[in-house]
């Protein structure tokens, strides 16, 4: 009888534990990371009596989590992937939106500027139109430098978000270290502390959302974490710390490092795997950098082209045109670990050849190499730097030591402070430096076809006389280098001197003269203005024209954003499906729990019935004895 009561009690205890667990499941149905728990029952070993083994009731063996390690790790992995893709799509969208309003964009500002120059070609002497040209030059410069400023602000934002994410990871790592300790202590009782383990998985996923981790489960129940590149982030109860610090290669650049046991190991984007931090770093170092470089390339090429054209003409007061735009200078930063005393200076020699990239110059074992920061390509340059590379002259003074590096911030620097620099519309150099005059007494049929200034030249404004010694020969007199004497004249073939090019038609008589004269002031000659309005047709941005270069910025950023958005929705779908698989295995189904409640309630009632039966039997026996 006592046996029956005990059996009933064990059943009662088991049913109660099951009811408790179902209640626990129901209460945690909405708790993130909660894994449904189940009571493991086992029969209590039977006792041998004469008639065989008689059962002893039921034992609660364990309360176990409905956990699947592989599914859970799949979720962790996909969490990193999705978080990295998501943040990159988000931040790239900012750049995309920044450039989205094409009706008020840089392209339209360039066209408006060109349109004003077109009006100036027609009404060259109209001061109002000249002021409009300057206003639009200002609006364009502002648009470009503002856009550069916005990109820079996005970059600052990215740094702040990386720092935040790193400190988020640091907090989680500390909590994980404590949990590791508690779990290994809990395990000492022989049972898994289920809820602590759920908590730990949640925290691991939170870390993984920021930075991809590999987990290594230890026999003592603790979990070690590594970065995708294999650096320790958590060993038992010792957490590492992520810190933002300035890079050794480029002191102005902030990089991420892992500090553990007093060791400081910088992380590079390439060995980080995925996660929010990685998405942010990729955005900062590759996507945003490419945008800044393209914008800077355009700004420098645009300013360079117009400044060059200004220098080929005369303004309303007869002065050689001053630069029309200014852009920021290229910047050079020496690596923190340089041991030589070399200094590097950059000079833009041909703005139309500038590439949309910055560079890393390094010197090793007597030879230079140059790495493009945008596409990562490295060129070996040998022991001597070439006179010009990608439109730049790199000047080195002092002595390089092997291993020295320099960060050359070229394209990404230019756009940041683009300005329109002329004070008055009078300073627009619309006129050719010289006018062509046919000598009044010419007897031949010479006619002017055209005269253009092709490059700036110290002597371009000097008066020059072209005298025809015969119908097919001429000599040039006047200040300039290497005066051509007794040259063959072919109608329609240009005569070039001091940077200008003169095309004549017709046949001269011997003694006929053409004079290149400076007529000042001459506000009405529009020769150089015409050259200005045509600049936008020419391939002055590394083979593309201005509008094409802007279009390339648009499509590059649009393409990156689109790819990032697609990656985002792809990895989100992947994460969703792995989460669904895990949730369907480990999550709580309330209807199921309701059914179980019913089942356990019945079991509980049945167990109570067993005890009641035992009690009744006991009473019967007692009444017999009475």
């Amino acid at each position: 009888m006592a046996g029956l009561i005990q059996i009933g009690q064990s059943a009662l205890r088991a049913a109660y534990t099951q009811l408790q667990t179902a209640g626990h499941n129901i209460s945690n149905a909405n708790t993130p990371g909660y894994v449904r728990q189940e009571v493991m029952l086992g029969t209590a070993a039977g006792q041998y009596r004469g008639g065989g083994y008689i059962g002893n009731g039921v034992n609660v063996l364990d309360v176990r989590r409905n956990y699947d390690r592989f599914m859970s790790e799949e979720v962790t992995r996909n969490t990193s992937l999705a978080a990295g893709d998501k943040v990159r799509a988000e931040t790239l969208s900012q750049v995309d939106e920044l450039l989205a309003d094409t009706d008020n964009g840089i392209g339209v500002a360039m066209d408006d500027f060109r349109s004003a120059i077109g009006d100036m070609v027609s009404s060259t002497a109209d001061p109002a139109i000249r002021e409009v040209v300057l206003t639009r030059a200002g609006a364009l410069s502002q648009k470009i430098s503002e856009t550069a400023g916005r990109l820079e602000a996005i970059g600052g934002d990215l740094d702040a978000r990386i720092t935040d994410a790193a400190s988020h990871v640091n907090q989680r790592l500390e909590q994980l270290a404590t949990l590791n300790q508690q779990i290994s202590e809990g395990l000492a009782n022989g049972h898994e502390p289920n809820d602590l383990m759920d908590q730990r998985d949640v925290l691991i996923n939170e870390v993984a959302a920021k930075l991809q981790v590999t987990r290594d489960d230890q026999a003592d129940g603790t979990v070690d974490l590594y970065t995708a590149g294999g650096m320790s982030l958590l060993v038992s109860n010792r957490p590492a710390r992520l810190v933002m610090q300035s890079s050794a290669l480029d002191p102005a650049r902030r990089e991420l490092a892992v500090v553990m046991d007093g060791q400081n190991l910088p992380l590079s984007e390439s060995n980080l795997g995925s996660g929010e931090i990685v998405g942010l770093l990729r955005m900062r170092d590759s996507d945003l950098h490419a945008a800044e470089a393209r914008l800077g390339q355009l700004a420098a090429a645009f300013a360079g082209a117009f400044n060059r054209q200004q220098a080929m003409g005369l303004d309303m007061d007869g002065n050689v045109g001053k630069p029309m735009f200014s852009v920021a200078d290229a910047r050079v930063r020496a690596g923190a670990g340089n041991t030589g005393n070399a200094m590097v200076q950059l000079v833009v020699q041909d703005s139309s050849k500038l590439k949309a990239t910055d560079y890393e110059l390094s010197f090793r074992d007597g030879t230079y190499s140059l790495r493009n920061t945008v596409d990562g390509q490295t060129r070996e340059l040998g022991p001597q730097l070439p006179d010009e590379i990608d439109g730049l002259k790199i000047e080195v003074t002092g002595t390089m030591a092997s291993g020295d590096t320099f960060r050359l911030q070229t394209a990404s620097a230019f756009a940041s402070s683009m300005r329109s620099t002329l004070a008055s519309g009078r300073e627009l150099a619309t006129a050719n430096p010289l006018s062509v005059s046919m000598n009044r007494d010419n007897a031949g049929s010479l006619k002017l076809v055209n005269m253009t200034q092709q490059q700036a030249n110290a002597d371009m404004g000097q008066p020059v006389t072209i005298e025809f010694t015969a119908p097919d020969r001429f000599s040039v007199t006047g200040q300039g280098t290497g005066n051509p004497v007794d040259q063959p004249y072919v109608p329609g073939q240009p005569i070039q001197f001091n940077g200008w090019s003169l095309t004549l038609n017709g046949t001269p008589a011997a003694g006929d003269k053409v004079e290149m004269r400076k007529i000042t002031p001459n506000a009405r000659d529009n020769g150089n203005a015409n050259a200005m309005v045509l600049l936008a047709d020419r391939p002055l941005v590394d083979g593309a024209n201005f509008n094409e270069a802007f279009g390339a910025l648009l499509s590059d950023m649009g393409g990156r954003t689109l790819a990032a958005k697609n990656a985002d929705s792809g990895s989100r779908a992947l994460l969703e499906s792995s989460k669904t698989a895990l949730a369907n295995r480990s999550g709580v189904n309330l209807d199921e729990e309701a059914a179980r409640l019913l089942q356990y309630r019945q079991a509980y009632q049945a167990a109570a019935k067993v005890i009641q039966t035992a009690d009744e039997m006991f009473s019967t026996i007692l009444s017999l004895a009475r």
Partner: protein
Amino acid sequence: MRVSSNHYRSQAIGNISTQQAQLARLQEQASTGRKVNRASDDPLAAAEAERLRSQVARSDIEQRMMSYAKGIMAQTHDIMGSSIDALQEARDAMISTGNGILNEEDRKTLATKLEMTRRELYQLANLKDMDGNHVFGGPGTEVEPMGSEADPVYQGAAGTRATGMQVQYGLNVNGQDIFSARHGDAMKTVFQQLDDTIGALREGSAEVAGEKVREGIQAVDTTLNNLISARTVLGENQRIMEKRHDTLEAGEEHVMRRRSELVDADLAEVLSGIQSRDTALRAAMQTYSQISRLSMFDYL
């Protein structure tokens, strides 16, 4: 298969918000009328649209230049016409009395007549167009192109003033090309020749006067020929410009259409998309709320 209640709900909500996001995107297309609202909507189309827009802008610049040129050319044309008329009158006057049988009074009358014509012609030769540029000033001068009244020789440079992009539209004429011609060994302007004629009519003998009148007629004829051929060239240029204008407009229309195909939304398509998404979203919401009302706990 087990289904986690919590996950089921968040998934259903996720699906609904995805559908809402797609609806919002379509709504954006409907409200902006464009399917490419940012470069990422279609990177290649965005770049192409940008290129096409600047093509239209370029064509607009050229058209503005043309419409400017049209006004100036018309003025140049008129002033050349007036100059032709004035010269024609001088020529008629000289021809009608041109047999050398001139008495002194006739000579004086003719001189006065020629003086007036010469003054008129000189004024015409130094006229400015509505934009302040000399009609006979060539590429442009700040001074009177035909010099002072007393010394009427061309002061400007060779060539003419023109506007345009690659194609240049000549706006005016060059005074030297029109008014200067070789007489014997020396280059003379028609003004100088007329001055000579007038001087001879006033002071010279009938014989000298007759000679100078002949020279005057010759100079006037040369100038007339110059003017008429310059006016023909101008007219021809105007015609070419009209044609170019039509070509540009047609091209612009073509480019605009192409751009519109690239970036503008097909409203009918967008609206039907909105309709079908709207239906799908309604269905999702309705079934979700129906299904989530089902609970085992109601039957406990």
